[in-house]
């Protein structure tokens, strides 16, 4: 099937195509005229319009269009796809997409580019990086990538090159709940929203920051199974709208309410004593600490009425164990992020919902599942290791403070790149290789990021567009979009093992390459080719399945393959069913569960409500505790941000179809506040603080606390290459101060601002 690009663009991207950038070097518009091939039959693949990475099914329609739907084989996704996923093809054929390597010819960030061949790009990068390595050591080069998918290939390159400094976006987004889970459970946990009867949510906006299976699960629980949803959030978000009860909590005080819930569970004798006795360590210290955190106290801190906290806790306990407190996603709301997420986990632990329906559970990967089944129910995937990989000797730049130890292996403290570059802390960083990451938007204090970029000797960016960050690169490497890439099989196990795989839907457009290939070829130029022994992606896939071609073909044709039945170790019905299905299964406990097999990778092997390990890392933080923090000046308003359903953080603002849905982020202001400032909806406003100043528009709405303003994040790009996004709306990163939260290493997303009409 031939797909003519020009016909397509005429249909799909006409309106905004004729922008100033029609002649941007290396763009699809500049190169034009190539004919494309794609599959008319549905190809199972994986979306990448956000990090949820939903299973999709895509095909070329009438040689003109790419239809993207959900993959129906993945039951919990139900064949659905969100607006961003559905618009993936709009990015694929976007005229402003860069499809040829570029080198900077003006000043950094000036927007002057020249097209180059891949060979020149590789040679330039190799020359510069090797020079820096020879002079200052490999560790003076940082490598960062958005986590997941191909980030492993970049980090493999970093390792081969000899640098320990690899970073994901974690500390700017989800690391808070990951680090807290590591401290308490010894690893990540999942939430069984779909089976929950009572859900307490602290601003985890699943109805705007869509995570398909969780979003669907929660809606199904709410609407079909009568689950009750309570939301604590300063803004009236969509999830607040769908809640049975919404409390406009004071920004950053979630930890107080969570602790008051724990207090009530313990003091009113509502907690699961048997569970705590068997699986929890450090309960006594925790109970002693939370004794002071009464609902009345929490009310004084958070503005949530004490009687409601008490009532909600009782309702929650009554619904337990099929009830949960959602531990959230993007943070951080406060510098006390670590305590907040831990308190949220504690509220789950106390009702004993671990490995119960509607509670929290651990992923059941094939090896674990097979062990319980006493049989090879699901195939396991092999992990390719490369012999003789060098071990970087230098310390990571974020290894300055022991308290961040838990995040070192989970993406690192991303923003330390700024300190290392600008202040040589702990040593001087000289180059930055980044892939599909946009710290200008997602890291706080944009001005500081700019300074960093300008100070570095060498910057490489690999992306689809010249993002705000890529605009400061010396070499830009155009990556193929997910619709043009094959990748490794991914483990997507939940309550039972599952795999899926990304596959090419259309042939590569222009002169782009998948980043796994880019890093492999760059390794060759760097002289580290021997560490990339695989020929292509198929070699890697075959290695994963141990040359089991039928298995690989099944995963490819179905796109989503799951094995066995859902298993929660403490859910008698499920365990009984499981034991009946597999004759060689491990014998069940007396109570028909596998509870005795529940183990945690913590020092004590138990759930650590209080932790000696943490106490050692961060003295005073072993026990979950409330600390007052000041996040704004008295005369400022709280400034908070959130996700919108039609954009993915800082990544999709220039995608034509999504840009035409929304390209501006008018700032939410309560009518009372707006009245005092003489602001009406649509008015032009300045929003400013000590960190930065932005211009935008006001949206006067009762859906926000009077002491708080809100904006959807990701807008207001300042580089001219993103023609559809630049200058539209408020740039949140330019208003957030450079602050790193204790233990989690997260940067902070709540601050104070002033607003004025202009």
């Amino acid at each position, binding site marked *: 099937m031939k797909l003519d690009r020009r016909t397509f663009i005429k249909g799909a991207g006409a309106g905004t195509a004729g922008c100033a950038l029609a002649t941007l070097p290396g763009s699809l518009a500049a190169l034009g005229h190539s004919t494309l091939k794609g599959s008319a039959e549905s190809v199972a693949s994986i979306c990448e319009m956000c990090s949820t990475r939903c299973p999709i099914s895509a095909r070329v329609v009438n040689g003109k269009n790419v239809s993207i739907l959900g993959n129906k084989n993945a039951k919990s996704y139900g064949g659905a796809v969100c607006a961003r996923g559905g618009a993936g093809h709009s990015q694929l054929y976007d005229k402003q997409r860069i499809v040829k390597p570029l080198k900077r010819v003006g000043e950094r960030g000036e927007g002057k580019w020249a097209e180059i061949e891949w060979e020149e790009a590789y040679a330039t990068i190799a020359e510069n990086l090797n020079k820096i390595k020879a002079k200052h050591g490999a560790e003076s080069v940082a490598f960062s990538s958005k986590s997941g998918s191909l980030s492993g290939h970049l980090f493999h390159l970093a390792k081969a090159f000899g640098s320990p400094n690899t970073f994901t976006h974690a500390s700017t987004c989800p690391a808070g709940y990951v680090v807290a889970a590591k401290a308490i459970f010894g690893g990540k946990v999942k939430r069984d929203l779909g089976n929950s009867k009572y859900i307490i949510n602290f601003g985890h906006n699943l109805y705007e920051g869509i995570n398909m299976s969780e979003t669907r699960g929660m809606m199904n629980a709410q609407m079909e199974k009568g689950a009750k949803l309570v939301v604590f959030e300063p803004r009236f978000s969509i999830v607040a709208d769908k809640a049975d009860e919404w409390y406009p909590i004071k920004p950053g005080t979630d930890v107080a309410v969570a602790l008051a819930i724990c207090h009530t569970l313990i003091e009113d004798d509502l907690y699961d004593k048997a569970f705590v006795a068997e699986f929890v360590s450090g309960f006594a210290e925790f109970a002693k600490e939370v004794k002071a955190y009464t609902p009345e106290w929490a009310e004084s801190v958070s503005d949530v009425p004490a009687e409601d906290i008490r009532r909600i806790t009782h309702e929650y306990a009554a619904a337990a164990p099929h009830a949960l407190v959602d531990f959230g996603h993007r943070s951080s709301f406060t510098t006390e992020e670590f305590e907040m997420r831990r308190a949220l986990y504690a509220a789950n632990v106390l009702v004993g919902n671990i490995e119960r329906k509607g509670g929290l559970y651990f992923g059941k990967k094939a090896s674990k599942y097979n062990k319980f089944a006493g049989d090879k129910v699901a195939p396991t995937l092999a992990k390719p290791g490369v012999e003789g990989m060098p071990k970087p000797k230098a310390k990571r730049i974020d290894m300055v403070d022991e308290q961040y130890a838990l995040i070192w292996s989970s993406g690192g403290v991303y923003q330390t790149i700024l300190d290392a570059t600008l202040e040589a802390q702990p040593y001087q960083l000289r180059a930055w290789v980044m892939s599909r990451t946009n710290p200008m938007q997602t890291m706080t204090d944009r001005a500081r990021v700019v300074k960093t970029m300008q100070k570095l000797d060498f910057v490489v960016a690999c992306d689809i567009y010249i993002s705000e960050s890529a605009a400061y690169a010396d070499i830009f490497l155009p990556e193929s979009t997910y619709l043009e890439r094959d990748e490794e099989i991914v483990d997507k196990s939940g309550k039972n093992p599952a795999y899926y795989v990304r596959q090419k839907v259309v042939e590569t457009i222009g002169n782009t390459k998948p980043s796994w290939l880019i890093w492999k070829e760059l390794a060759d130029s760097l002289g580290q080719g021997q560490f990339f022994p695989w020929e292509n992606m198929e070699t890697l896939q075959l290695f994963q399945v141990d040359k089991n071609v039928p298995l690989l073909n099944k995963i490819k044709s179905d796109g989503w393959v799951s094995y066995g039945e859902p298993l929660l170790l403490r859910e008698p019905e499920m365990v009984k069913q499981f034991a009946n299905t597999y004759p060689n299964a491990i014998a069940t406990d007396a109570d028909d569960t596998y509870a005795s097999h529940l183990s945690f990778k913590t020092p004590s092997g138990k759930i650590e409500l209080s932790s000696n390990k943490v106490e050692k890392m961060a003295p005073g933080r072993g026990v979950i505790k409330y600390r007052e923090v000041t996040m704004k000046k008295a005369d400022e308003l709280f400034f908070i941000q959130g996700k*919108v*359903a*039609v954009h993915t953080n800082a990544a999709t603002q220039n995608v034509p179809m999504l840009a*035409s*849905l*929304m390209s*501006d*982020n*008018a700032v939410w202001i309560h009518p009372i506040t707006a009245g005092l400032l003489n602001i009406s909806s649509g008015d032009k406003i300045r929003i400013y603080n000590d960190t930065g100043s932005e211009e935008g528009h006001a*949206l006067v*709405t009762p*859906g926000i606390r009077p002491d708080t303003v809100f904006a*959807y994040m990701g807008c207001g790009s300042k580089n001219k290459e993103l023609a559809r996004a630049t200058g539209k709306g408020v740039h949140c990163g330019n208003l957030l101060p450079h602050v790193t939260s204790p233990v989690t290493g997260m940067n902070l997303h709540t601050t104070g601002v002033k607003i004025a009409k202009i």
Partner: protein
Amino acid sequence: MNNIWGSMEQYDPVVWNWIIAVYLFMAGLSAGSMLVAIGLKWYKKNRGLPTEGLPVIKAAAIVAPVSISLGMALLVLDLTKPFEFYHILLNYNLTSVMAWGVLALLVYIPLVFVFAALVFEKQVLKYAPWLAGILKVCRLLENSIHKLIFVLAIGVGAYTGFLLSALISYPILNTAILPALFLTSALSAGSAGNVLVATLFFSKEKSDCIDQVHRIEYPVAFNEALCLVLLFVGLNFSGPAAQGALSAITQGVWASVFWIGVVGLGLLVPVLSSIFAPKSWRHTKGFLITVSCSTILGVLALRHFVVYAGQSYIS
């Protein structure tokens, strides 16, 4: 909530613009001019008076065909597919007011040209002697043709009103008054148009029936005013959406158009000037031209007001 669903431009309730307003005016002008001319003819005939060469009738023979032709040209050019105009002549959906309008105009327009040709028979034959035969037949059928044109002109005048009143979601438009309003204002425009052209090109002396035509303006103006009162009083009692639409005459630019254009120029100027102007003025050319222009502008304003304000308020 921020708009995350995209542009709202296409949802503008104002679909039809000034071109349609001008067309509606032109069609009304043509129909009104014919009604006045034929009415005058019958009036004279009944009294046994001569009807040949009356300036008003000559004027109508110019006004009616020219205005309907211009109107049709505007209408066709305003189509999104003007070159596929012929489909509307081949396919008829009889639940559509527009289809009936097309049928009426299909007969009306040629007949208006026949009317004009008969009025200017000499001149026509000078340039197109080959039409002599046809004109002879037409002359024989002249009385029937007049009756037919009269009926069709009522149809055309009222149809423009029905065209809009069929738009059920616009309270100002979706009323039975509208066709009546359009017909009466068509008479206003038609008589004023006839008087204007007659005064400018065909009048030799004072009398010339211009006065007689001028006299029908009182009852017509009265009827028009009555229709407007009925329209807005009716709106006031037709539920909240309709009541909301009343602000069309109290707020915004269209309220000004209504009070200054429709009421001021269209009704007050002609009526008051006829009452208060000194006798010596009344038959002067300048007076007649001013007053008829004012009336015509008033009716044009009315069509614009109805089209724009009418579509601006949706239930």
